[in-house]
């Protein structure tokens, strides 16, 4: 039998729980510090700030935006898992069969991500999205904003919420559909599940193409309500996709180092490495396409986005983002040998995962926290909590089925994969 069952030892699970516990402690410490120290500071300067027309960031705001940031990031990775499987089906790919269960299991985070996202939006929507404030649409209010008001046909509370629920419902539906067929194939064999999966995958890709782009506008772009970029859907997709590929590759390496996935060899790693290498460049291409056009045209309402990000608070993130997500993987993964060695892949994948978290940080923080952002206990704490929960759900999903899709028609081809 080619079946291979993953068993997560209690020790590993405890590590995930410890991760969450440390996260909670850091988060509480961060909140206390901010409520005590930062709050008092802001209290003094409050008169000025109010006069200047904007509020100083409170700890709740910082908490909400951090929850949002991590949720968008991890949901994106989960979604990319389903996307990756769908692409492999539609492309009739053989090589990826042995590692297919890993992207498949990533999708188990989707329901949790959906619930958290709806809750955060309902509770903390005002802290994250400027456009949710009613007074912006009231012509008689001094704070009336004609530009945002003009976008109210798309950006309004109910339509936003409906879109969010619809996207998650569709994603979860397709995830369950593909997953169920994959597991049924294990049980019953035959090629009918495979052919049906291709049809379902093709449908999902259409849904994904529209929904991922709109989700990017909704969840990330609308934070900077006045600003817009036609590259943005692609940009967020590219960032999600690279992070998702890095997560898949990292999991493959970890599982292999722990004695699982015995039939996965350097050739499969090579292909995963090529994927990450190529899409790091793709991300950079999108990044540059967005940056250069705005830089060249130099229209104030567009270039403000990059001026904020090149300001004193975010300048280092701006350049670290490019270094970690482009220069580092580009130079390190360029050679064939690097893509075939687990240690090199491990280093690069971890760097990319951190790098794309920073990328989302850079997309969200300047529009919400303005000059008050930083990477402190709250950021690290929330990220650790999310990472712990994500890993618990993901590894549990991995244990639910054999790591090798034993009856997949292309299994044999994948075993003999050679590059």
């Amino acid at each position, binding site marked *: 039998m080619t079946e291979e069952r993953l068993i997560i030892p209690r020790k590993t699970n405890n590590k995930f729980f410890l991760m969450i516990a440390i996260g909670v402690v850091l988060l509480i410490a961060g909140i206390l510090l901010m409520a005590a120290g930062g709050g008092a500071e802001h209290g003094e300067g409050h008169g000025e700030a109010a006069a200047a027309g904007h509020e100083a960031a409170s700890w709740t705001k910082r908490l909400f935006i951090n929850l949002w940031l991590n949720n968008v990031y991890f949901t994106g990775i989960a979604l990319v898992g389903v996307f990756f499987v769908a692409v492999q089906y539609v492309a009739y790919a053989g090589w990826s069969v042995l590692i297919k269960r890993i992207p498949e299991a990533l999708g188990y985070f989707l329901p949790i991500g959906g619930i958290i996202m709806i809750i955060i939006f309902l509770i903390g929507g005002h802290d994250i999205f400027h456009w949710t404030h009613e007074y912006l649409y009231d012509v008689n209010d001094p704070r009336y904003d004609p530009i945002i008001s003009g976008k109210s046909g798309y950006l309004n509370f109910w339509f936003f919420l409906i879109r969010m629920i619809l996207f998650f419902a569709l994603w979860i539906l397709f995830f369950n559909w593909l997953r169920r067929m994959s597991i049924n194939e294990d049980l019953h064999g035959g090629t009918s599940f495979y052919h049906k999966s291709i049809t379902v995958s093709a449908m999902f890709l259409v849904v994904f193409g529209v929904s991922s782009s709109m989700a990017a506008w909704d969840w990330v772009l609308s934070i900077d309500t006045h600003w817009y970029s036609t590259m943005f859907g692609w940009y967020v997709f590219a960032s999600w996709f690279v992070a998702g590929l890095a997560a898949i590759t990292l999991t493959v390496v970890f599982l292999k180092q722990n004695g699982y996935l015995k039939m996965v060899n350097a050739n499969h790693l090579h292909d995963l490495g090529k994927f990450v290498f190529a899409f790091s460049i793709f991300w950079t291409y999108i990044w*540059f396409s967005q*940056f*250069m056009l705005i*830089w*060249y045209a*130099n229209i104030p309402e567009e270039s403000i986005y990059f001026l904020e990000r090149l300001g004193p608070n975010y300048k280092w993130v701006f350049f670290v983002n490019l270094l970690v997500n482009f220069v580092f993987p580009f130079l390190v993964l*360029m*050679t*064939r040998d690097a893509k075939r060695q687990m240690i090199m892949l491990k280093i690069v994948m971890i760097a990319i995962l951190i790098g794309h978290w920073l990328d989302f940080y850079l997309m969200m923080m300047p529009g919400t926290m303005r000059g008050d952002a930083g990477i402190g206990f709250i950021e690290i704490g929330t990220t650790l909590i999310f990472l712990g929960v994500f890993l618990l759900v993901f590894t549990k999903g991995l244990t639910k089925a054999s790591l090798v899709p034993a009856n997949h028609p292309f299994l044999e081809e994948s075993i003999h994969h*050679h590059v």
Partner: protein
Amino acid sequence: MNKKFVLGIYDDEDVLLEAIENVRAAGTKIYDVFSPYPVHGIDDVLGIKRSRLPIVAFFCGLMGTSFALWMQIWMLGFDWPMIIGGKPHIAIPAFIPVTFELTVLFSAFGMVITFFIVQRLRPSLKVNVFDKRSTDDKFVMAIEVKEGVTDMSALNNLLRTNGAIEVNEKEVIK
């Protein structure tokens, strides 16, 4: 001067790969193997070292990057400074597309030219086709016969026992 070759004809990829291993294990040097299409894993069994062409590509690419940056910075920054779109003379983001293109161009042309030189490919080149069927549906393993050897039966046996459907001899005029 004439060179003598013994040709083993194979009609199966897997048999061929095994035969190559066995022939090499028996201490016979294989001159070359001709196949109608690239065979997976044949480089390994033939003991062909990995190509160093990627290194050439990298340095040609680096040359392209440097040349493009130097050219644009010198032309637009020093030789004939112009204000374009209110940007500084040396506006790096505007130079990136050209730099990228020249990097690709240099590394691609560098690789092709290096390959031609290393392989001595030129218009006047005459290629000995050992067996025309190697462009159709047969695999041909060529073994050069050492000078002075006249008895081919040993080689013949070696190839036949390893699955050759046919063993021929061919003399090539150099």
